């Protein structure tokens, strides 16, 4: 491979007879071209042309990504959430952020009513299990679950007290499916 193989958007990389267009490339009249600035690589295993970006690139949700989501609506069968951040990425999400957590995907144990586990306004750490046709999340994993929850009576943040959540303002006790590091996550730092 050439030493200086930095390519610019529009530069010719290969032809469609030779390779498949991979990440950061597009096909035009049988020619594979770069769609972003970066270094050109060939994935020999899959015969795919790729452009490893030098710049930051738009964040696209993929299966397996760990995300932070805000609960928008709760129903007995599912929770509707809005993805606000992808862990490990700095840029905001491009595209659809509406997502759902099905009652069966909340935790390992049987959950009859999903709306008892999360409430509107909570922030959860979740994993993407499906992107198309709709975004589906799960909080079944070890590190997954609510990282911030609000009291349903006074909207103040709930504090963890030996495995139970309690509101320090009104003394209200509530239940949630929580992550092990509940309350210790600096959301602004992520």
């Amino acid at each position, binding site marked *: *491979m050439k*030493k*200086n*193989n*930095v390519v*610019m*958007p*529009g*530069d010719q990389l290969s032809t469609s007879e030779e390779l498949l267009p991979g990440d*950061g490339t*597009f096909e*035009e009249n049988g020619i594979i*071209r770069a*769609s*972003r*600035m970066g*270094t050109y*690589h060939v994935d*020999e295993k899959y015969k795919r042309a790729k452009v*490893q*970006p*030098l*710049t*930051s*690139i*738009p964040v696209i949700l993929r299966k397996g990504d760990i995300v932070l989501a805000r609960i928008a609506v709760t129903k007995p069968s599912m929770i509707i959430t809005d993805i606000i951040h992808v862990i490990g990425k700095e*840029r*905001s*999400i*491009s*595209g*659809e*952020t509406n997502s759902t957590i099905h009652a069966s995907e909340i935790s390992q144990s049987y959950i009859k009513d999903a709306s008892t586990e999360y409430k509107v306004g909570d922030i959860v750490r979740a994993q993407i299990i499906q992107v198309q046709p709709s975004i589906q999340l799960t909080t079944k994993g070890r590190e997954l679950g609510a990282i911030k929850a609000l009291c349903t009576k006074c909207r103040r943040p709930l504090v963890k007290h030996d495995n139970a959540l309690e509101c320090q303002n009104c003394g209200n006790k509530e239940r949630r499916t929580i992550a092990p590091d509940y309350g210790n996550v600096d959301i602004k730092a992520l």
Partner: protein
Amino acid sequence: MKSDIKLIDGHGKRLDGRKADELRKIKIEAGVLHRADGSCYLEWGGNKVLAAVYGPREAIPKHTQNPLKAIVNARYNMASFSVEDRKRPGPDRRSVEISKVISEALERVILIEQFPRTMINVNIEVLDAEAGTRCAGLTAAGVALADAGIPMIDIPVACAAGKIDGHVVLDLGQKEDNFGDADLPLGLAPRINEVILLQMDGHLTMDEFNKAFELAHHGCLVVSEMQKKALLEKYESVVQPEEVVQDVQPEESE
């Protein structure tokens, strides 16, 4: 507008000493804004332009979303202190038009089908103006988009030509624009060699138009090289460690 000013002297030299086919000094810097997804600062003669790219992100208001592609919202804005007499701040008839033509020019080069239901915001802020700001704006937007890693088929570029004192010249300056006969800004996608923006102010004969178009086209290609150089300069330091990785990679696969 006719005046007594002689815009071009007997030797073919212009007011600022340039030849007919000479560009003003251009300085391009990529990635200057920390909070933007991509940005560019550009100086083109007396023009000083900042371009910032945000997105693609969920399009708001929601009814503007297109389920098949992203919408490109370019916003051209002149600072109140950018011109000789204070400009009333905010969008006016002129800047709304320029925003529209730049948006449409960018839509041609961005792979908008890859980001349905989103919008890409391109904010072009003119800090100092000296004729040819729409060209400077589009050129800066092109660099900012590449800096944001937004998939494009080409880096857009723009350059103007015009007619002063009956001579067709490249890249009009402030006085040449004000007292000249015609101005022809040209936006180009240099690789596919496609015109993405073309406007004309004043009158040109068919021959003059062809000559001006040729000049502007040539100017675009020159500026295009500067854009690429600016982008490479910004990311040159990042390339070095990448190369080390590449040297290792082929061995691993063997």
